[in-house]
């Protein structure tokens, strides 16, 4: 295979060309590759490079299940890019299937197994027409029910697809399909699959380790060895592709970049974002190959053949790995069409900043108080930090040249400033006191959140400061008042609708730390795998309500604790919290009703009514003051 020679200076093709071109095909190009697995297999054979190998623990599980001979069918579910086809094919090959048969056009394929059973493969349910789909689903039902033991189904489908098909077949047969609800419940983790059906939900399998595994498989791939022989790196020249790859691998910064990236991906995951494997691969590819000038790198992704020109033009800094993480090298629309870039964009890195950080970047070079930090944090990186281009642009910006006064004249420097903010997030050390890295994001308290999660998972107590902040935030949302209490929780109402913003009547007070079965406890919810606030109004079962803490909700409570008005941060979080408040009030209502009905004999009505009003002292400390009203008999 030949690669076009771009520059007349180069007489040989760069040694890693084929590998880089292969890697590029994983990147966020404009092509919408729905048949990705087939494409990759194809490209692999053409490129003659070693494939990217990722562990697939699910595949091992699937293989085991089929080998075990347990009767029943297999459902492989997931979203686009989770690897459904990959897993199907893996199983096919494992059971003795031939590649040629796999790539044939028939949507339903049969494979005879060594134990005599026949596995019927449907690698994409959406490819089937109504008749074929009905046939397949009938086989599914029969094999799950145990009526059919010779044949079984292996089907891969999106969550929505399988549920819709089951509903449609149910309509055609005038009944509710018996498998629909159990499958739905399994997807939503509210139930278990029936005996004869093994459901492998690939969208549930991405863990924190998934990203680092992908990054390692890509950045640590053996094909990179070829680069050591490459002309483009000789003589002290910097190849942006290799530079990015080195930074991704973490050899020079002790893995800081990878760690930070892992943290924001983890926070995204805990926020409910699902990042399929294909997206993680696209991210890894973009990180290494991204370049923001489409004239120098086609579609925003570099190939070896582009490097010489980039070096010539001196635009290596446009390949900054830190911007590539957020897809800043791509047109916005293309970037936002991928869940992974949408998820990472929600952190606002690049636009969020602090006065201190911006001050350093803009004035640091000239201010004697800041120059040391400037050297340490910006000048120390001649490739992507304070490069000559950056310094020149900074100078123009500060000097206020004519061009800078024109509309958008400052635009050039501001773009560079954004690039530096990206970089800051990934390069400032953990203990950097003046420039805490989470402050460069919209999730200023994410660090505390991750700390809390790890403390809970190791059964260690969480920090007092974090707990106090949560209680304060909770109180403020519950009562709508700016109270400072972190010793107790006010379950407050306004007498009427519970959704009113200000609630001054204290229904119940519970301690902020659970004692004697009453109060708030922060624990890790085993099913949701997230922390939860569990508020118990009385000892015993059934007297508590739980509130799951995703990073967004945690951030909401912390911001409110620090003074933000609940409505201005996030309406969604406020709604969630008010629903939780309504639940608590309902629990209190029910408890009161039960208590009075449990009395052995009705106590005489002493004719008084006590209302507990919440009042605030000058220091912000809230307390409930009882007001007695004599009703009379």
């Amino acid at each position, binding site marked *: 295979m030949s690669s076009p020679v771009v520059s007349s200076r180069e007489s040989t093709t760069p040694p890693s060309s084929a590998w880089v071109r292969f890697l590029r095909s994983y990147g966020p190009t404009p092509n919408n590759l729905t048949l990705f697995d087939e494409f990759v297999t194809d490209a692999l054979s053409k490129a003659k490079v070693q494939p990217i190998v990722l562990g697939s623990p699910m595949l091992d599980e699937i293989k085991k299940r089929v080998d075990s001979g347990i009767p029943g069918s297999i459902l492989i579910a997931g979203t686009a890019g989770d690897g459904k086809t990959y897993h199907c094919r893996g199983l096919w090959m494992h059971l003795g299937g031939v590649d040629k048969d796999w790539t044939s056009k028939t949507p339903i394929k049969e494979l005879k197994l060594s134990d005599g059973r026949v596995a019927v493969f449907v690698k994409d349910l959406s490819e089937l027409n109504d008749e074929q789909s009905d046939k397949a689903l009938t086989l599914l039902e029969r094999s799950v029910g145990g009526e059919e033991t010779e044949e079984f189904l292996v089907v891969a489908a*999106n969550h929505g697809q399988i549920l819709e098909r089951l509903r449609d077949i149910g309509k055609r047969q005038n009944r509710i399909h018996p498998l629909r609800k159990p499958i739905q419940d399994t997807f939503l983790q509210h139930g278990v699959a029936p005996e004869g059906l093994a459901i492998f939900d690939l969208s549930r399998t991405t863990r924190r380790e998934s990203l680092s595994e992908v990054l390692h498989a890509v950045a640590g791939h053996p094909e990179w060895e070829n680069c050591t022989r490459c002309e483009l790196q000789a003589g002290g020249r910097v190849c942006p592709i290799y530079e990015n790859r080195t930074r991704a691998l973490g050899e020079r910064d002790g893995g800081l970049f990878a760690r930070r990236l892992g943290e924001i991906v983890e926070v995204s995951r805990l926020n409910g974002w699902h990042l399929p494997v294909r997206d993680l691969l696209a991210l890894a590819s973009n990180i290494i190959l991204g370049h923001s000038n489409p004239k120098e790198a086609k579609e925003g992704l570099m190939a070896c053949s582009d490097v010489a020109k980039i070096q010539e033009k001196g635009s290596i800094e446009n390949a900054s790995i830190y911007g590539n993480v957020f897809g800043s090298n791509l047109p916005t629309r293309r970037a936002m069409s991928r869940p992974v870039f949408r998820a990472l964009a929600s952190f606002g890195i690049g636009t969020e900043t602090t006065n201190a950080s911006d001050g350093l970047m803009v004035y640091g070079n000239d201010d004697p108080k800041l120059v040391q930090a400037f050297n340490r944090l910006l000048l120390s990186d001649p490739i992507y930090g304070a490069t000559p281009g950056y310094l020149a642009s900074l100078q123009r910006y500060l000097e206020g040249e004519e061009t800078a006064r024109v509309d958008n004249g400052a635009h050039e420097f501001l773009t560079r400033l954004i690039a530096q903010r990206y970089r800051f997030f990934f390069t400032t050390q953990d203990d950097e006191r003046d420039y805490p890295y989470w402050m460069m994001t919209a999730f200023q308290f994410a660090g505390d959140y991750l700390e809390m999660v790890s403390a809970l998972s190791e059964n260690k107590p969480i920090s007092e400061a974090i707990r106090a902040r949560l209680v304060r935030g909770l109180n403020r949302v519950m009562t709508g008042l700016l109270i400072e209490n972190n010793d107790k929780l006010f379950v407050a109402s306004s007498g*009427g609708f519970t959704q009113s913003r200000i609630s001054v009547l204290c229904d119940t007070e519970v301690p902020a730390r659970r004692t004697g079965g009453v109060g708030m406890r922060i624990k890790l919810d085993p099913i949701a795998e997230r922390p939860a606030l569990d508020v118990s109004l009385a000892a015993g079962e059934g007297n508590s309500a739980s509130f799951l803490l995703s990073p967004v909700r945690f951030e909401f409570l912390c911001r409110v604790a620090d003074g933000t008005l609940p409505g201005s941060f996030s309406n969604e979080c406020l709604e969630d919290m008010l629903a939780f408040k309504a639940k608590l009030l309902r629990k209190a209502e029910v408890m009161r009703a039960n208590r009075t009905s449990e009395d052995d004999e009705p106590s005489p009505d002493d004719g008084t009514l006590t209302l507990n009003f919440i009042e605030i002292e000058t220091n912000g400390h809230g307390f409930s003051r009882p007001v007695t009203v004599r009703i009379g008999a």
Partner: protein
Amino acid sequence: MTQKIEGVDFAVDEHIWGHRLYDEQLPHLAVLEFLGVLGSNVEHPLRAGPNDRVRYRPQRQIRLRGLLFNNPYVESIREKAISDEDKWQQWSERFAMDAAQLGDGDIAYLRKIFNNFEDFAKAIELLRSSSFEAKSNKRWSSKFVFPFGPDALYEDLRIDADGVASNDRRFFARTGELLYLMLSRAKRGPELGDQLVRRLFDSTSSMNRLVKALQGSTQHAGDYRDVGYLPHVTHPRFDRLCDDWLAILSRNMPVYDALEHMIASAGLNLLLYFLECGKKQSGDAEPVEIICEIVSRERTKVRALSGESYQSNQALSVRAVRAKVESIKMTNEWLLAAQSQDPNGNCAELLRSWFQWPPADGVDDGDSANSTGDQLTKTLADKAESRHEQHFGKIHAAWSRAIGLSSRRLSRRTRYAPNDRLLKTLVVTMVDDRMQFDEFLSEMRLRYGFVIGDTEGIRLVNEKLVDQEALSENRGNLETRLVGLGLVRRLSDSCSFVENPFITEGDF
């Protein structure tokens, strides 16, 4: 059709919709009036058959209302740096001045109830904060405290300069009475009645006891009165409303929250009843359609469509009125009357028996004795249309705005754009646990005629009124909106579930 309505010049609207639905009686006022009727019938709630006579004696609770809404002095006196005794003294002097005509000069009982003036002021403030329209500039006798329990209910009154109180039917115009009749005629009416009594008429609830303390002994209206007239013995909308209320009451939320949703639900169902009866009367067999725009930043074709849908529904009722009057001409009796010896007289007689017009004594504008049947019919239709514009004709606009269904946001004219509150009520009502998003949309169409997505709006697409993509985007906007309200969980691309947060036990 022969039910005679008192106190009207003629009866046309009344026979289509009932006597009476009233534009200024917004849904929350209708529900309050309804609770008043229920309050007199707690022994057999919502069990009246179509031919039974339903009576009730509303409460007036003038002392309570005066203290809450005709009492501007509490705040200023509370702030003063004088002794507690002096505060009471000053306040009672000022208050007695206004209250004297109502014979409420004696408020010594308040001193026995509250330890000090501050407590008294706090209690007043608390009750005011949860009342309906407390800050509006309506007359004080039309302000309502939250229906905490039986002692917090009272009827709307007009209190004139001499202190004489009467229900001028300005805000309690019988829509609540019709609501009572509708629910009584629903299949599950008795079940609903029992639940309502159990949960909303608990006199031992603390807020109700507070209200009772302020009121003292209950003040009733003079005597019992009959409720209004509802022409339909059954109607699917009655059952829909009843089922919706039962669903809301079954949710895991405090009953006061449920009340807010019930008010919105009543408003929506009453509005649909109004439109449906109008359509039926005009001979239009198509179900009511409400094309909704989910407000987004860009202006879409759907906005124009939802505006037209609004206009078209707005024009329904007046057409129905004319159709009703004209319909008399299709009957056999009319034919006979027209061919009789005295066509004018007999036609007039027939008209009178249907519509209570022309009046028997013949004293009316013009020479009705010499007018032909057709002329009379035309005159009546004109009069009916003209009167219709005053109140019945405004119901659609007033109520759709009150429940958050219509809006003029970002647009020159009003159109259907449900707000967050209404969407929340819909989810709370319709979703028993969780429902796939497509099912939710289709159910909304079935129950309330809402058209939002491309599946329900396929007719519009086929008629080239809007392209499928615009409706599909509209649908997507709704999904995003509901996610933002915490009501939808996205499982994966194109697979999302609407979840009712007030059902699932345990975690959120």
